[in-house]
């Protein structure tokens, strides 16, 4: 087990700038790499992640992490855990800040993710020693460190009076930039986001906008297909037509709906969808299909 105190050279610089909120002592696990604290972005959101939330987190965090941002989050299930996971898949760096003692894993059943973070040059951080149990008040304190480590905070989905809004409040207090991803107005998880937008947070729809703030370039990511090669509708194969249809529907389509749209027997459309999945063109989440 290792730790750093305020006076140490390695102590995260940004975290020193939050006045009396700066933790005296910070425990960590993992290999310390001097670049890991350089471009930190906190990505937080609802524990009750919707399919939409998962989809946008996967899309945007992949681009951010592969562009070199360190994704900081709180290791809770939902958006937090997804951000960590996606950052690891994109070969990016990630830091998980724990609400409990450094020797505990909370929640316990995410042990696999915990180990993966450690084995992929990630960092686990906590201000609590040994096996301190998490308590109601340690979660907001953990959020303070999540916000304190990062130049900016990205909030994906947030209910009213949720922990994500506490993180946003810390960020505001520390004068950090707040980005939010707008969601459908019918979702509970958009209520907190709406509130933040009204208070001046920056709504974004692509990773580009955050990267510009960090003055980084998108790397290692396939650019959008060139719009020149647009094929007339009549010449499109059924696979292309399905892709077009799925691109239009942000909330995805189920197999029954696709069968109705294309007036095909469900057995046939099922064959096509299976093959498209195997080719990696589309993916299935729950009942719905999405463009990969």
């Amino acid at each position, binding site marked *: 087990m290792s730790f750093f105190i305020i006076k140490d050279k390695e102590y995260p610089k940004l975290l020193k700038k939050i006045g009396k909120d700066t933790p005296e002592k910070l425990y960590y696990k993992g290999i310390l790499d001097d670049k890991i604290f350089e471009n930190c972005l906190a990505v937080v959101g609802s*524990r*009750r992640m919707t*399919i939409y939330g998962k989809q946008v987190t996967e899309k945007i965090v992949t681009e951010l992490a592969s562009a070199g941002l360190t994704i900081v989050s709180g290791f809770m*299930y*939902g958006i937090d855990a997804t951000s960590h996971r996606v950052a690891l898949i994109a070969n990016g760096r990630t830091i998980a800040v724990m609400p409990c003692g450094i020797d505990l894993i909370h*929640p316990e*059943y995410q042990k696999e993710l915990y180990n993966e973070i450690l084995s992929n040059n990630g960092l686990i951080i906590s201000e609590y020693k040994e096996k301190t149990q998490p308590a109601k008040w340690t979660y907001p304190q953990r959020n303070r460190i999540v916000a304190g480590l990062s130049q900016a905070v990205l909030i994906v989905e947030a209910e009213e009076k949720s922990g994500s809004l506490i993180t946003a409040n810390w960020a505001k207090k520390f004068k950090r930039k707040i980005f939010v991803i707008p969601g459908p107005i019918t*979702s*509970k998880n958009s209520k907190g986001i709406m509130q933040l937008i009204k208070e001046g947070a920056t709504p974004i729809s692509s990773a580009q906008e955050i990267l510009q703030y960090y003055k980084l370039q998108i790397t290692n990511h396939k650019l959008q297909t060139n719009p020149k090669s647009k094929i007339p509708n009549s010449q499109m194969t059924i696979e292309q037509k399905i892709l077009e249809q799925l691109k239009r529907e942000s*909330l995805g389509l*189920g*197999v*029954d709906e696709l*069968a*109705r749209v294309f007036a095909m*027997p*469900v*057995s046939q459309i*099922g*064959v*096509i*969808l*299976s*093959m498209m*999945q*195997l080719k*990696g063109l589309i993916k*299935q989440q*729950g*009942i719905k299909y999405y463009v990969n």
Partner: protein
Amino acid sequence: MLTKVKSGASSGLEILGIDVEVNVAKRGLPGFDIVGLPNKAIAESKERVKTALISSKIEFPSKKIIVNLAPADIPKEGASYDLPIAVGIISCEYGYSLPEKSLFFGELSLDGSLRHTKGTLLLALYAKESGFKNIFIPKDCANEAAIIKGINIFPLENLIQLCAHLSKQKLIKPFVYQKKIEDEHLFAEFDMAEILGQEQAKRAVEIAAAGGHNILMVGSPGAGKTMIAKALPGILPSLSEIEALEVTKIYSAAGQIPAGSSLINIPPFRSPHHTASSVGIIGGGQRPQPGEISLAHRGVLFLDEFNEFPRSVLEAMRQPLEDGYLTISRSKERIKYPARFMLVASANPCPCGFLNHPKKECTCSLRIIQKYKKRISGPILDRIDLHIDIQPVDLKEFSENQKLTEFLENSFSIRKRVLSARQIQRKRFLDDSIFTNAEMKNHHIKKYCKISKEIEKILQQATLKFQLSARSYLKIIKVARTIADFDNSLDIQINHIAEALQYRSKEE
């Protein structure tokens, strides 16, 4: 004077021959005793027989009567000994000789008439196998026993009629089997055409019906899971003669064949509630009775709210799901009940039911959802070939778009396809003593599901992509076999495998 009357005792689906020995002694104090391990129902038989004889204007001898049920060491139960005991007394007292090679079986009513008694089909089978020629049974069960050809069935209404027959004053005519006219009628609560949308679920149920596959439907409340399950009997083909006899035997043993009814050739549809007891569902009890899984033999066992069933009940279902029968062992007997059923299960995706719902929000935490899903063990899920997610249908879409409702296929035409797929299977498995694709074991799969190089490649791809287990791999091949049977295709083609992949378990 001593008379021996032949009868039978049921033990599971078997009948054991029982000699009812009646002795009416000329000496001794008047009395009436039954020995030979009778249970309560038989002990009370004394009172029924006595009153029935008196009601029939037959004098009850005021002598010492001893009835012995031999062999004496087998425990006996049920009211079916009323008739042989009464016949024995009449024969002793009035000197009527009993017809040779005859069995007597039935419960008496106090007025001397005969009541419907369970197990007469089994008795008729036993009679035929053991070389008996005549059986005397209550009239209400005559049509049930008459399924078995080659023996004379004498339908009895009351004791007076029997006395007239025995004294050769007025003979009873042997019963002639009456085929029920409504036999071919389809019994389903809903027609498939009544279900709007749910195209994939309907297709999956069709495949399940054709191949006898087990199917699990997961979806929010109101999505139509129960409706689809209840429409299923309408697309199932009637039972073949062998199957029908198997099913009728179980129902006969359970006493579930109504008076006047006969061969059951409609696949049974059983839907026990999740609060039903383990014995009720699996079978058993002090005198082992068939449970719901056996009553669903060659038919459908529909378990609504699958996650709510006690784990012990679901686990006990594992062996019958694999072997198609259940063995109940007791210290005195071992009884085997067939239980080759098609499991149709439905479940909510989470405790609140609204996970993945298009409009409502789920209020369950991840941990609760995981706990809920864990209630069904892996081995049980492994035995389910088709997994389907069901989403509520937007009824508005259908009311606005007339076209969508125009082409809804009805159960009758789906049933035709199912029937032809079943016939192909029957032909294929002629030498394998199985009926459906779902029953295929590994060696059958090797023999009948030849996989080309190209398909193997696709399956390998799918295994990686969807993280399929070895067992799901085989399940996909089995389902693809059924889909190929719809096309009357000898080999499994790529599109059959691709469609089968749609119905894989997405939890792995």
